[in-house]
Each structure stands twice: as structure tokens, then as C-alpha cells.
């Protein structure tokens, strides 16, 4: 089983690569086709937010264990403008960019666990897990 996957995301090309690598990583971790695509889609959503709002950020994917089984955890962080109202950002159809929103409620549904930490002016960190 491969070690953690740690990448910097600062361009569309980086994002593409991370999405592909995440798919492979999830499949190697034991996820089936559909859930591994869901994980990759979550990565794509979060990575796109980094590019849109922060310019660049860090991505980490790793294996996690709990008594009832295994899974993976992703951590996506940036030093961008942060999110003023995290509660509002978790509501469907909320957008601060006047476009499609941050897609965070969608990412939460794609994954099993989801944590959003953000302080305005300092940055944002999202941690999400999915269990097999």
C-alpha cells in the first residue's frame, strides 16, 4: 500500500494530475470504481476552489483506520482569503463568487466525514474522510 500523497496545487495542470492520482490512490486503497470517482470529484471540487480563491494550496491524501474498517482522508489547505461565514458556505446554492458556489455541501455528500476550518485573511483547511 502506497504512502501518503502530498501535492502542491497551483495550476489547472496540477489539479488534473492530483485528480488522476487520487483516483488511483483510492482504488489501490480498496475503493470500487464509483466511490473512487466520487473521491476524485471531491478532490477536483476542492482543488478548483484553491485555484479560484487562493491561487495555490496544499493537498494531502492518506490512509486512515478505525476499529470498523479502513478508509482515506484528504486534507486541502490554503493561505487564501478564508471563508467569512462557514455555516453559510455549507448551505446549498450559496456562492461568494457569484458563480456556482464553493461546492462544499456537494463535497460533504461525496465523502463520509467533512470538517471545514477557516479564518478570514489567513486561509482555509478542509479535512474529509471516506470509509470503505
Amino acid at each position, binding site marked *: 500500500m502506497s504512502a501518503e500523497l502530498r501535492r502542491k496545487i497551483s495550476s*489547472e495542470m496540477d489539479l*488534473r494530475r492530483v*485528480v488522476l492520482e487520487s*483516483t488511483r490512490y483510492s482504488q489501490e486503497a480498496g475503493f470500487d*470504481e*464509483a*466511490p*473512487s*470517482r*466520487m473521491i*476524485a*470529484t*471531491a478532490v*477536483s*471540487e476542492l482543488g*478548483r476552489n484553491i485555484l479560484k480563491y487562493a491561487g495555490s494550496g496544499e493537498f494531502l491524501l492518506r490512509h486512515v483506520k478505525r476499529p470498523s474498517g479502513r478508509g482515506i482522508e484528504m486534507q486541502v489547505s490554503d493561505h487564501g482569503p478564508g471563508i467569512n461565514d462557514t455555516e453559510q458556505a455549507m448551505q*446549498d446554492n450559496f456562492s461568494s463568487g*457569484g*458563480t*456556482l458556489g464553493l*461546492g462544499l*455541501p*456537494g*463535497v460533504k*455528500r*461525496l465523502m463520509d466525514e467533512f470538517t471545514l476550518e477557516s479564518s478570514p485573511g489567513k486561509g482555509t483547511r478542509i479535512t474529509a474522510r471516506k470509509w470503505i
Partner: protein
Amino acid sequence: MPLFDNIPRVAMQVSRDVVVASIQVDLDDEVLNRFREDLLGRVHETGSRAVILDVSGVDTMDCDEFAALRSIISMITIMGSQSVLVGLQPGVVSALIEMDVDVAGLQTAIDLDAAFELIQMTPAVEPEAEADGLPEVDSDVGQVEIAEAGEAAIPDAGRLFGDES
């Protein structure tokens, strides 16, 4: 078009009065922009009554990519042509539905044969009326199609252009 020189193109062919676009590359912004221009140009040139978008080669599609694809479909509709999305992979479908994207009014088919069948079942739009590129507001078919997709079409199209500014 030198602007697009190194950007991968989406393969397109015209078959039985239908433009078949086979998307086998990742849909980043540049690919999508070029694809939109190519596709709208092709529909305009050929006066095709329908477009089949084969996305069987797309492994992941996030909300932005889906919205961009939808806006292209809206543009095709406004031109007076019909669009069918073909070959969505199970993983892509699961992800899109979990993310609660708007799928209302989308025409989809399981494979190319089914897509052609679906198009045959829909009354044809007069090709010569379409050749000038004007929306089909005079024909009954055109009117129905625009009315069906109108709600989704207009905000989507605006959003895409808004994104680029």
C-alpha cells in the same frame, strides 16, 4: 487560430445529419472554450439537427465542468439543434447526483445507437431554416425546444461568459 495551437481538440464527425463529438480528453477551461467554438461552428456550418456528446471517455466531472458542458448544450439548443449526452460513466453519474447538480431537461442515452434512436424519434427541424444560424422561432419544433430548455439555458449561458471576465 494560433490562440488554440497547443490545446487538445475534441474529435468531431458528422453522421446522418448529426454532429457526433467524442470527448476523450480532460475538460479543462481551454479545452472547453475551444470545443465550444468548434462545436457551435460545426453545427452552424452543417445545419445539423442534433448533436451527440459522447462523454464515455470522461472519468471525473466536477460541478464547474458539468456546468460548462450544460451551457454548451444550452447554446446548441438556442441554435435550434438538439443535444444528447451519451455514455456517462457510473462514477461520474454518482458524483454528479451526490453533488445535486441540475440535470433537468438533459437528454441522455446509454450508447451511440440509443442516442441516434432518440434523435430519430424527435421530429426533424428544417435544415435550410437552420443554415442561417438564427434560432428556430418560427417552427413549432424550435419553439417547443426553446421553451423546454429556456429556464436552464439563459442563466447558464450568462454564467459561462461571466466566469471569463
